């Protein structure tokens, strides 16, 4: 070595999970799992238009084996927990990264959806909890009696209450906004960005998010307007 060496403090490097990039990969993967669930859930729920017999049969099909059901549910729960843990940890870190705020700051190159992820996320979470209590557990079922197994009745009776529908529509629009950023962002986080494909992906994200919003909110709207009884 040279005549004088400077010994810099050496640290163990952050692990995959400790690094911000690693957490974002976890968020992308768990986000993708939840996105796939949202698609599957939408397709299943659209069966409400096929009438009570087919809709309830679909619900019974999901319950065809309780062990299997709980395995799938566990995957979703783990995905939700990891997605939220990573978000909270990153959000705390990001807050600390700018201790003094700007007196003036303009957003010149970012989407509304990307800047509001920290808002849309928690509201959607609150909605999911309410939604599970209402339609899965049946603890909260304003306006009518929850009947286990008669999913068609529960949906129609649930959405007949105007504020349940309003809250549902509001939360689903936020979910769509969340996905408008999330759908393309998950590719970026795992390292896929292409000059030609990424702009297409962003457009696709917008279309898919809009389709998800419309597909879901069509149900309470149909119930309120009496299209589905």
């Amino acid at each position, binding site marked *: 070595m040279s005549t004088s060496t400077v010994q810099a403090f050496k640290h*163990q490097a952050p692990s995959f999970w400790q690094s911000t990039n690693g957490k974002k*990969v976890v968020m992308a993967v768990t986000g993708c799992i939840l996105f796939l669930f949202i698609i599957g859930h939408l397709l299943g729920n659209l069966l409400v238009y096929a009438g009570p017999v087919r809709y309830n049969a679909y619900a019974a099909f999901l319950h065809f084996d309780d062990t299997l059901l709980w395995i799938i549910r566990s995957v979703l729960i783990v995905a939700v927990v990891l997605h939220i843990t990573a978000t909270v940890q990153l959000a705390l870190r990001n807050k600390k990264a700018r201790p003094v705020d700007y007196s003036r700051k303009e957003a010149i190159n970012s989407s509304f959806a990307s800047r509001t992820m920290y808002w849309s996320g928690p509201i959607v979470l609150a909605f999911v909890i309410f939604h599970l209590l209402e339609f899965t557990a049946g603890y909260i079922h304003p306006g009518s009696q929850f009947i286990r197994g008669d999913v068609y009745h529960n949906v129609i009776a649930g959405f007949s209450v105007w504020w349940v529908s309003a809250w549902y529509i509001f939360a689903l629009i936020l979910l769509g906004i969340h996905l408008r950023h999330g759908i393309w962002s998950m590719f970026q986080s795992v390292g896929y960005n292409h000059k030609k494909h990424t702009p297409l992906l962003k457009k696709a994200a917008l279309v898919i998010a809009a389709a998800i919003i419309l597909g879901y909110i069509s149900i309470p709207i149909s119930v309120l307007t009496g299209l589905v009884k």
Partner: protein
Amino acid sequence: MKLTLKIWRQKGPSDKGKFITYQLNDVNPEMSMLECLDVLNESLIERGEEPVAFEHDCREGICGSCGFMINGVAHGPLPATTVCQLTMRHFKDGQQLVIEPWRAAAFPLLKDLVVDRRAFDRIIEAGGFVSVSTGNAPDGNTIPVGKEIADRAMDAAACIGCGACVAACPNASAALFTGAKISHLGLLPQGKPEQDRRALGMVAQMNTEPFGSCTNIGECTGVCPKEIPLEVIAHMNRDFWQASWKEREDLVQTIAPVTSWSNKTKTKS
């Protein structure tokens, strides 16, 4: 032209700092933003006041020394331009300009508009190089490089390390800078042998510094004077997880952020 400059003044790292408004009545529209500050500083010196401290070197947009926020946008309103290249004709007569330093925990403020950006140096030290024997220049074209690869590497290599990406990022993340450095070397054949080690080292150092995380928002690329694309961040993410997967030994160590003298924080040893 007349301009009102509202400039952040702070005597030192531990000073509280505040905005002070200066009225400039005779601004030449052909001056650059930095020359405008020079004119202001001359009048301040004449009055016996402390001039505004700001960093500058080449004044032709390639060194990365200068940079501050103008009306909430890093390097001001003109795209792909550093403040030294930003001429005053782009502002309206009588306009007020709010001039603020980069704000980030990783960039502790030293004085007025000057911040300590050595966090970037430590990221470079952690892998932003290629280990090759020096000596006579090798023959041209001994290693063929495709045009597309050369172009992409050049686009990433255009990064001047000014710190605008960190300043503009709502999370104060250094992902665009680190991504640019990882891509520009990792894309080329000369950089391939150290690709994994570079990604692990530089990402580890970036995460050791108090930068935020990338949330793929895109403000960084919007203010970047060299228009570095978001693609470089994806490149970094890809290199990082692939290297983490392949990694066989815990070789990567990071350097503790030694900014204690400037931000008065104790570093863990």
